[in-house]
C-alpha cells in the first residue's frame, strides 16, 4: 500500500499541470480576490445633479462632503448614468428637492442618506443628540477572512475528486487495474492508497493556502492548528471517498469528467465558498447544509475565524464523515475492476 501511495504521488508531482491546478490555482484565486475586495473602506459615492436653477451651488455643497463626488448632468446623460449605475443617485433641484435612485441598490441607499444629511445640515439643521464615531477594523470580518477557509474547502473537494477520480479511470482505461487484479494485491489496499496519498498532499495544500493568506493578508487561524488539521483530514477523506465513488464505474476520462463536474459544480455554488449560503431561500438551507462542502466550510470558518473548539463542531463534522464513509463503502461494492 505504501508503494502504491508512493507511485500515486510520483505520478502526480511529475505532472506539472496537475500541480498547478491543485496548489497554484487556489493561491492565484485568493490573491486576485483578496486584491479586488481589499478593505479600503467604502469608496466615494458618485451622485449627479440635474441641470436647472441653482445646480452648480448644490453640486458644490454636496462635493464638500468627503464621501461624495457630485457632477452636474443634463437630463439625457443623467438618465443613462443612473441606469448603468455610474451614479448612485440623481438630485433634482427645486422645491421639493427630488432624489431619484434605485432603492434595491445598497450604494444608492447610502448615497440618499449621505446626500440628505449634507443638504439638511447646509440648510441649518441642528443635531439633537451628541454622537461620537468609534472606528474599528476587526480582522476576521473582512472578505478575505471569509474567502480563505472557503477556498481551502473547495481545494480539498477539487483535489480529492480530480486526484482520485482521474487516476482511477485512467488506470482502468489503460487496463492497469486489470493488471493489478492479476497480482495478489488486495483491492482495499489499492483504494486506501488513494486516501493515504491524499493525506500527504493535504499537508502541502493546507500549509500553502493558509500560509499564503497569513503572509499576504494577515488571515490568522484563531482556533487551534490541531483542530484545523483534524478537520482538513476528515474533509480530505470524505472527498477522496466521493472521488472513488464518482470513478467507480466510469470507463472513459470523458465520462468521469462529466460526473465530476456534476458533483462539484453545485457545491461550488451552494456551499458558501465565495459568498454566504444564507442568501439562498430558507427552504433550501437544510439541503445546502447537508452537503459535505458546506459542512466542511462551516467547520473551517468556525475554527479559523471564530476560534471555535472542535467539540462544538459535532454536526458538521458528522456530516463530513458520513459522506466519506458511505461513499467509500458504496465505491468498494460497485467498483469496476476491469
Amino acid at each position, binding site marked *: 500500500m*505504501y*508503494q*502504491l501511495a*508512493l*507511485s500515486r504521488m*510520483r*505520478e502526480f508531482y*511529475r*505532472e506539472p499541470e496537475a500541480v498547478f491546478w491543485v496548489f497554484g490555482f487556489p493561491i492565484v484565486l485568493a490573491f486576485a480576490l483578496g486584491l479586488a475586495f481589499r478593505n479600503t473602506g467604502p469608496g466615494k459615492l458618485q451622485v449627479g445633479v440635474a441641470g436647472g436653477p441653482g445646480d452648480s451651488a448644490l453640486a458644490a455643497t454636496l462635493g464638500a462632503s468627503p464621501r461624495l463626488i457630485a457632477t452636474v448632468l443634463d437630463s439625457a446623460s443623467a438618465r443613462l448614468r443612473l441606469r448603468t449605475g455610474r451614479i448612485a443617485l440623481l438630485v433634482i433641484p427645486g422645491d421639493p428637492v427630488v432624489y431619484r435612485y434605485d432603492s434595491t441598490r445598497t450604494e444608492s441607499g447610502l448615497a440618499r442618506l449621505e446626500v440628505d444629511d449634507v443638504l439638511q445640515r447646509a440648510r441649518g439643521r441642528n443635531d439633537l443628540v451628541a454622537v461620537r464615531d468609534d472606528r474599528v477594523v476587526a480582522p476576521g470580518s473582512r472578505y478575505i477572512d471569509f474567502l480563505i477557509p472557503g477556498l481551502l474547502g473547495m481545494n480539498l473537494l477539487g483535489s480529492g475528486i480530480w486526484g482520485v477520480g482521474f487516476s482511477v479511470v485512467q488506470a482502468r482505461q*489503460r*487496463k*492497469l487495474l*486489470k*493488471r*493489478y*487484479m*492479476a*497480482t*495478489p*494485491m*488486495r483491492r482495499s489496499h489499492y483504494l486506501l492508497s488513494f486516501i493515504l496519498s491524499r493525506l500527504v498532499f493535504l499537508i502541502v495544500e493546507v500549509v500553502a493556502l493558509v500560509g499564503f493568506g497569513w503572509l499576504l493578508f494577515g488571515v490568522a487561524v484563531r482556533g487551534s492548528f490541531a483542530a484545523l488539521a483534524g478537520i482538513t483530514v476528515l474533509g480530505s477523506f470524505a472527498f477522496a471517498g466521493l472521488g472513488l465513488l464518482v470513478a467507480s464505474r466510469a470507463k472513459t476520462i470523458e465520462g468521469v469528467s462529466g460526473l465530476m463536474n456534476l458533483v462539484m459544480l453545485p457545491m461550488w455554488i451552494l456551499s458558501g465558498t465565495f459568498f454566504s449560503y444564507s442568501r439562498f431561500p430558507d427552504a433550501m438551507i437544510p439541503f445546502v447544509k447537508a452537503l459535505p462542502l458546506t459542512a466542511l466550510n462551516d467547520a473551517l470558518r468556525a475554527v479559523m475565524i471564530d476560534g471555535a473548539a472542535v467539540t462544538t463542531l459535532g454536526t458538521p463534522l458528522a456530516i463530513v464523515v458520513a459522506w466519506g464513509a458511505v461513499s467509500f463503502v458504496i465505491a468498494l461494492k460497485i467498483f469496476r475492476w*476491469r
Partner: protein
Amino acid sequence: MLGPNGAGKTTTIEILEGLTQPDSGDVEILGMRWQDGAPGRALRERLGIQLQETQLADKLTVSEVLGLFRSFYRQSHSVDEVLALVELEEKRKARVVTLSGGQKQRLAVACALVSKPELLFLDEPTTGLDPQSRRQLWEIIRRFRADGGTVLLTTHYMEEAERLCDRVAIMDHGKIIAQGTPKELIASLGADHVVDFALTEGGTADDLVEVLRQMGGVSAVRTGPDGVSLTVVELHRALPALLALLKARGVELSLLTTHHATLDDVFVALTGRQLRDT
C-alpha cells in the same frame, strides 16, 4: 496457443488467469481452482502474468514500476535481478514513456517475472515488435524455461510457436482444433514438404487436380486463388514428376516454390485458410 486474431486466445488465457469468468467448464491451475480472497491471492503469488493491452504508468521510471509490482508479492526478485533478466539495466532510471515498444514489452514481461513465478502467462508478447526485439524476448522466454519455469503464451506467429514451444494448441473460432508438439502437428499432415505452383493460363483444370492426387509421393492437393498447393512426402520424386506432367500438357509455370511443412500448413489443412491472412 496459436491462432489468428479473434480466435479466442485472449479470452481463453484470461479465463485461465482468473480475470474473466468462464460461461461453463472448470479451470485448474497448479492443482488449484480460482477462489476469491486468500486462496486466490495464494495462487496469484505463484503466477506471472503479462496482459496484451496494459499500458504502465508513463510518468514512473522502470525501477519504480518494478518496485511497485514486487511489493505485491511475498517473495520476489530484487529490482536489479529482474532488470538483468530482461536486459533493461541501462534503462533503470528512464521513464516508461521514453521506452521503445520492445523495451516496454520487456518491462511488461519483467513485471510478470518479478514474483519468481512457477507459471508464466504471456499474451501475444511479440505482436507488433521488430525482429530484433522479438528475438530478445524469445531469449528471455527460453531462459525462463531453461530454469525450470512453465510458460503459456499466445501468438499468431507460427514461427514463434514452432521455435519456442514444446506443445502447441491451434485455436480457431473459440475451439482448439489440434494439439501436440510442433513435430507431431506437422507430421499429422502426412508429408514434410509443400510445393506451391501457379500456371500462366490461370485457373486449373479439374482433371489436373485429379491427376496430381494420383501422383506418387503426393498426400494432398489444394487449389486456391493463387494457384495449387501440394503436400508431398518425397520432394525429390514428386517435383520431377510434376514438371514432367506439366510439360506433357504443354502448360507454363508462373510460380514454383517449395518449403518444409510448417504449422501454417497445418492451419491451412485444418481450416482451409492461411494463418497470416487473417
